[in-house]
């Protein structure tokens, strides 16, 4: 654990990822622009779900704002529980997704680490991650009284059917019409080509960054990925994302060359499933590292490149429907299990850590089946941590600590 009074440990310094500073700058600039009064920027603001197609917004010069990213910031600043409680006092049940609860409350009190998000001019809700976002965005559409566009991406339990394809493709056209209406200008299809290329390039680079952990020892852990994820989520389709991930990738490659690992004496390589536990990433990371266990990959951060195989860089708009409908969370539990099996092989995992996240039903229900499949097919130990991504009240520290210790013993 870090102690502010302790002298700087050169070994710890050497392990730190240097690009972090640049990343913080980019995010700060982004939020400063988003929070600058609209009269000055002349730009409209759209709130959009994390899995939503942001690229057309970039084309329209609209600033995208992500309540889920803000939810993560709220969680990391340990402000989640307060805001969740506030939402509960407004009548929202304590079982609802804590991102939604925190955001609904934050909007009314300008809460959270940056004093609330800038007010939206429109809301873009894509249900490829869950049904919760529909209800959540309805609440916000009533509160802010702004237009809501719903991009309905039916779940591909077993297939991306011809019916689904046709329906979502039609909606892509409707989405553009909606944006033209709200922004009062024509959509620039040439610019879409550029933005589309940047988006795919960003996703490819992000995948490459994540893949550097195939190296043993791994130059980073999934806890680092949780942090560096923010750009591919919020600024996908822009040049700074591409530039940044190029820089990060170079740093990772250099670390591999220099033999710098994130975990000292990496003994075990683990996978993480589901969202981070934002208020405890540090604690968990230290806990695992103390045993020489490195969480090399996770299903969550790789979610933002999970449909690269369906995206066509030369025809972004034409492949948008399929790419956004077939993200891993919008598929069947068996396909999600396959995804984990592939990752386990690719990253040479010795075990799987499953965050059973009470907030997120589409991600968490089915995990027990996935756990069984992984045990049967890979014969590796698995651990289930029952928690919540930002509501700290659910986190039972001593119990979780005991279970982690027992899990590590199984790895030995």
């Amino acid at each position, binding site marked *: 654990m870090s102690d502010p009074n302790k002298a700087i440990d050169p070994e710890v310094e050497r392990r730190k990822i240097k690009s972090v500073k640049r990343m913080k700058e980019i995010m700060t600039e982004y939020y400063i622009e988003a929070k600058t009064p609209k009269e000055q920027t002349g730009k409209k603001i759209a709130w959009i779900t994390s899995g939503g197609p942001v690229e057309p917004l970039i084309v329209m010069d609209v600033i995208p704002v992500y309540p889920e990213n803000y939810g993560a910031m709220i969680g990391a600043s340990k402000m989640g529980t307060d805001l969740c409680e506030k939402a509960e006092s407004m009548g929202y049940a304590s*079982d*609802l997704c804590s991102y939604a609860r925190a955001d609904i409350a934050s909007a009314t009190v300008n809460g959270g680490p940056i004093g609330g998000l800038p007010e939206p001019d429109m809301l873009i809700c894509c249900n490829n991650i869950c049904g919760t976002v529909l209800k959540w965005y309805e609440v916000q559409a009533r509160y802010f009284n702004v237009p*809501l566009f719903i991009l309905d991406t039916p779940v591909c*339990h077993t297939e991306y059917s011809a019916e689904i394809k046709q329906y979502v493709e*039609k909606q892509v056209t409707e989405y553009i019409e909606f944006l033209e209406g709200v922004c009062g200008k024509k959509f620039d299809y040439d610019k879409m080509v550029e933005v589309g290329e940047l988006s795919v390039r960003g996703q490819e680079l992000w995948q490459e960054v994540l893949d550097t952990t195939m190296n043993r020892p791994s130059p980073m852990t999934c806890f680092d990925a949780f942090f560096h994820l923010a750009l591919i989520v919020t600024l996908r389709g822009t040049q700074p994302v591409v530039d940044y991930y190029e820089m990060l990738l170079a740093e990772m490659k250099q670390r591999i060359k220099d033999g710098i690992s994130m975990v000292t004496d990496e003994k075990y390589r683990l996978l993480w499933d589901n969202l981070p536990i934002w208020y405890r990433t540090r604690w968990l990371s230290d806990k695992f590292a103390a045993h020489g266990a490195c969480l090399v990959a996770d299903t969550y951060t790789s979610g933002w490149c999970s449909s690269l195989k369906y995206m066509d860089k030369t025809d972004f708009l034409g492949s948008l429907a399929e790419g956004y409908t077939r993200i891993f969370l919008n598929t069947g539990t068996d396909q999600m299990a396959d995804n984990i099996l592939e990752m386990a092989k690719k990253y040479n995992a010795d075990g799987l850590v499953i965050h*059973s996240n*009470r907030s997120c039903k589409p991600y968490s*229900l089915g995990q027990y089946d996935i756990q069984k499949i992984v045990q049967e097919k890979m014969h590796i130990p698995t651990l289930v941590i029952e928690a919540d991504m930002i509501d700290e009240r659910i986190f039972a520290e001593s119990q979780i600590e005991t279970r982690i210790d027992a899990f590590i013993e199984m790895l030995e």
Partner: protein
Amino acid sequence: MASFDLFYEIINNPGRYAINWKKETGNKVIGYFCSYAPEEIITAAGALPYRILAGSGSISKADAHLQAYSCSLVRGALEDALNGRLDFLDGTVFPHTCDSIQRLSDIWRMNAGFKFHADVMVPVKLNTASAGDYMTSILDKFKKELEKLTGIEIAREKLKEAISIYNSIKKNLSRLYAIRRDAPDVIKSSDIHAIFKAAMVMDRRRLLEELERLIADLGENDRAPDTADKRIVLSGGLCSMPDIYKTIEKSGGVVVWDDFCTGSRYFEGEINTKVEPLRSIADRYMERVVCPAKHKSLFSRGEYLVNAVKENRADGVIFFLLKFCDPHAFDYPYMKEMLEKENIPSVLFEIEDQLPSEGQINTRCEAFMEML
């Protein structure tokens, strides 16, 4: 005297009813979740649509597949499936609604072992032309899947016939609601509840006959409503708890309407027989008041509730929230607020697996009636 015995007999053991039906007819039984399952198509295929409402026992096997934060409907249904209590089903239909049902469908497909499994991917928004076209196309897809299962082509005439049966059933069910509203002492809410539960598992032709007979027996009874009783509208998640009706009646209330998918939402909206059958079924879903897992407009459910109170001259609303049911929990605050603006009092009951203890619910119910 009207008799409800048949309906009670069926709901006391719906599985046995389905097994006997199967023996008698030699036809298939298709389990379904939620009121977005196109029952008309199942009926047209000669099969029996059997609504899976809630589990019938305590949970043990389902715990290995579902976390404790899934609703009791989802857990109970899976438990029944894994325990063989639904073995008479030839397959199951999952219309897409909430996140929990979405994953239940996967877990069911991977573990329950039925040979037929259909995901009917109902659109989430029911207010655009493209969603209407899509809805029609997935109904057609579902029809083809059923044809493959049964080996029988579902002819247009068969669909039309099924649609007309459903239209008549729904007219009769709505008639029961009207009788209760105008003369609450003629038919009790607990009896209506029993009829609805039976209606979702019974042979639909037989059901239609029984409903017609029953309504004739109830007669044109025009006794004045008992004015001392408080008139209540129920709102919220599927309430398969018959005891609640007795409690409300005991504390001096009478239920005059609801917005349940096992209640008014089931019979509302006639299917237009002049349009192509699949299109007309889709149209009804598009027009009907929505389930909270679907989107029509920002205020549609709240407006519906306020109107239901006014049209049925109700005194107050009781909300039911099933624990872990996200769609309903998200709607509750704004709907309550809309009621407040109209000075309509309401109270909230949270339901876990069971109703809160009888004593507790009695007290709260009585307190609410007194307040009205």
